[in-house]
């Protein structure tokens, strides 16, 4: 069996699956149950001066039959006394010496206050600290959470304060509510962070009750912007992680809509060393980790990888600037007439929404009449993928590579060549690419 264990900046964990800081890691009872069913680590729900929460706190978006495609919350950090949390953390760590117990922290922006909480927390024997610079709601109004994580200078400063006294690895949790998250990641690294975790939740208003006009989640008819997460945010998280992975050296703990082993493997391939899960555990319970571990092991074995380190960062360099993409790579859609069920969704999508390259049956001449198979006008097809994306039948529409006989040529290369042929001097764009 493939080795799933990891060493995250000195924090050892039997597998990369950690529960993210949030409602599932609020108490010792929960974390114990989670460890018992296989979670490798847990980031304790943010400890700080206790707050008071509202009712309600959570909102959801369903997509068709799928509940909670997106989820948000306006819950704040732990509402339990600091000493209760610390006592339970110590108990859990004692009972599970080989699991990763990391404590999320958030206190007011004062050096002495941070020093004190770090010392008290590390006295529990925890394996590491996660600085919550990401929480976008409530706490940010009090100058904490994302109010820190949106300003590189504050991020560096507080990280430095923590590192002045910390004896365990320090992870900085980043907010996606920043123009350039990697810039904040660099600031954290500069402040001495040993690792980073991202993404925290995105600012959001979940929905509006069209009878009462109360936004959701509603608190006596009103709401506040909350933190958005769940499967819907995964692509945003993947982008941000790859961007950080290219610009900083410290390990990354990936967060954002992870519900399956495939999700986890993608995060790891794009630069994460551990992954954190919250919404999926809130939806289905801790048991989901069983298939995450099982599926990831099977995958590693199938790929011939003996450990996770062979998967880590494997896709990072494949995320590049648009200007580096090959303009001479050509693919066109192919419809498998045997598999086509005749729904014509590809036709209408291409006709109305893309590039008018599919002929509807019966206009199409090549199709099987009984099944109304549409026809790709190959000479018109731009290879955009839309038809394959809307097709409800697995493997029915595939994008086939067409040999153009042309050598690969990116926009940057093309522009450079044209510039050189015209004898024009190179003036880089604001971002460095060719214009």
């Amino acid at each position, binding site marked *: 069996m493939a080795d799933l264990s990891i060493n995250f900046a000195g924090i050892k964990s039997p597998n990369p699956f950690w529960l993210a800081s949030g409602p599932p890691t609020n108490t010792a009872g929960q974390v114990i149950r989670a460890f018992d069913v296989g979670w490798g680590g847990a980031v304790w729900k943010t400890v700080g001066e206790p707050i008071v929460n509202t009712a309600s706190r959570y909102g959801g978006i369903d997509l*068709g*039959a799928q509940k909670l495609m997106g989820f948000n919350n306006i819950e704040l950090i732990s509402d339990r006394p600091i000493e209760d949390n610390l006592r339970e953390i110590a108990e859990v760590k004692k009972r599970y010496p080989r699991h990763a117990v990391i404590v999320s922290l958030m206190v007011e922006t004062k050096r002495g206050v941070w020093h004190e909480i770090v010392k008290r927390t590390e006295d529990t024997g925890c394996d590491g600290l996660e600085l919550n610079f990401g929480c976008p709601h409530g706490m940010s109004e009090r100058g904490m959470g994302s109010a820190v994580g949106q300003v590189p200078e504050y991020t560096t400063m507080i990280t430095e304060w923590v590192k002045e006294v910390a004896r365990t690895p320090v992870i900085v949790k980043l907010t996606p509510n920043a123009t350039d998250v990697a810039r904040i990641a660099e600031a954290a690294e500069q402040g001495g962070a040993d690792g980073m975790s991202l993404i925290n939740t995105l600012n959001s208003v979940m929905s509006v009750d069209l009878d009462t006009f109360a936004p959701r989640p509603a608190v006596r008819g009103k709401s506040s912007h909350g933190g958005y997460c769940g499967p819907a945010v995964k692509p945003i998280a993947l982008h941000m992680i790859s961007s950080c992975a290219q610009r900083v050296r410290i390990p990354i703990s990936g967060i954002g809509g992870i519900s399956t082993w495939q999700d986890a493997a993608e995060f790891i391939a794009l630069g994460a060393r551990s992954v954190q899960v919250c919404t999926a555990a809130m939806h289905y319970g801790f048991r989901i980790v069983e298939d995450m571990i099982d599926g990831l092991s099977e995958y590693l074995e199938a790929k011939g990888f003996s450990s996770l380190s062979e998967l880590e960062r494997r896709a990072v360099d494949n995320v590049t600037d648009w200007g580096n993409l090959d303009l001479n790579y050509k693919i066109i859609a192919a419809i498998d007439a045997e598999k*086509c*069920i*005749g*729904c*014509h*969704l590809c*036709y*209408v999508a291409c006709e109305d929404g893309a590039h008018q390259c599919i002929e*509807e049956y019966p206009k199409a001449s090549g199709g099987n009449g009984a*099944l*109304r198979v549409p026809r790709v006008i190959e000479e018109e097809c731009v290879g955009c993928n839309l038809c394959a994306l809307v097709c*409800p*039948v697995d493997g029915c529409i595939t994008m086939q590579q067409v040999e153009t006989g042309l050598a690969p040529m990116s926009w940057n290369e093309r522009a450079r060549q044209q510039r050189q042929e015209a004898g024009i001097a190179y003036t880089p764009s604001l971002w460095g690419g060719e214009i």
Partner: protein
Amino acid sequence: MALVNIAPKLPPEEYEQRFADINPRLTRQQALLESARCLYCYDAPCIKACPTHIDVPSFIKKIATGNLKGSARVILTANILGESCGRVCPTESLCEGACVLNAEGQKPVEIGSLQRYAVDYVLDRDIRLFQAGKSNGHRVACIGSGPASLACAADLAKWGYEVKIYDRNKLPGGLNTYGIAAYKTRAQDSLREVKLVEELGVKFEQGVEVGKDVTLSELEARFDAVFVGVGLGETWALNLPGEELEGVWGAMEFIELTKTRPFETVDVGCRVVVIGAGNTAIDAATAARRLGAEHVTIVYRRGEPEVPAFKYEYELAQKDGVVFHWNTQPVRVAGHGRVEALECVRTRLTEAGSAHGRGRSARLELLPGTEFAIPADMVVRAVGQQPLVSLLKTARGLVIEDGRVAVNPETGQTGNPKYFAGGDCVNGGREVVDAVAEGMRAARGIDAWLAAKQVSRE
């Protein structure tokens, strides 16, 4: 009816359970999940498969978005009897049979159930979706108040016609009210749909038999056009010796009792034999079983492969414990004053007159020496209904071919230009949805004909 060996009566709640809706209304969650399964095909095959061309993806999408009133409007605009069609259509050979999910090996979207779900929403709440059009001064009479006339009348009323429906029954709705198995739809369900037509200002003259209480020439004089939607008449006789014995029933007449009376007042024999294996025979056989008959037998002169009932109807009868005697031809109803047995003989399909001695057109041969008797307290004839030829023949110019009124396939116009026709009397007995489609076709035909007449006069 003077049956002797009457099946023991059951408690009223037991009858209600046995005749409970066989396909109960979807819950909100079920409807949402099912509507989410619809792929929202472009130029969808289900629309084409529906005789009334309901825009299925559109109404299902509206269910998914919670716009139930809009969904019902899409359905009822195309088919005013969308609710009962949702219940009784043979959807697996119409819309659901055309659903592209079949081709992927999935269950088709439950279009019929979703359709009923959406229409029930507006019927439950008495939401009025349609209004009578501004009067155009034209008057149309419809004969019969079944699905064809209702559909014809509804469209005409929307376009400003003054429409009066003449029907010989006490209650309107025709077959929908009187002739569909009670576990599929009850009379009150049909009457809710009739109300949709009444709300458009259509007048109903119930208990009036055209040809007797009012003559065709009177109608011709009072109306600009006449729509004939009379359906079919009584069940065909078998012309068997003993058919006049007490306890011999027509299937339609038997089913009608279950639709108009409390179940506990409908007597059924302990041993019932139904002759014929079409959908109506199944309705009669299952009704007899559910009313408490101990032994219900269907005799059919051809074999199981030729069974004319829809597959799900046949399976329903099997589930209800109905016994089938294939290749069995009744020859005599035996008894003294009342039915005691049905005497039969075995048959064989012969090569002559058909391909390989199979199929419903193959000729039958009686096998001598195979005579046997099935003891019975009640015999139900279910061999199809007779056309109402006597009435139809009194209309000048109407052409009756093979018991059916001949019409222009584009307009529903008959040999007499003032008469239009649709439904069972034209198609020989098909589905409710076909009757609706033909009623609507005739409405368009009447509108075009009267408009053209007006133009030529001006």
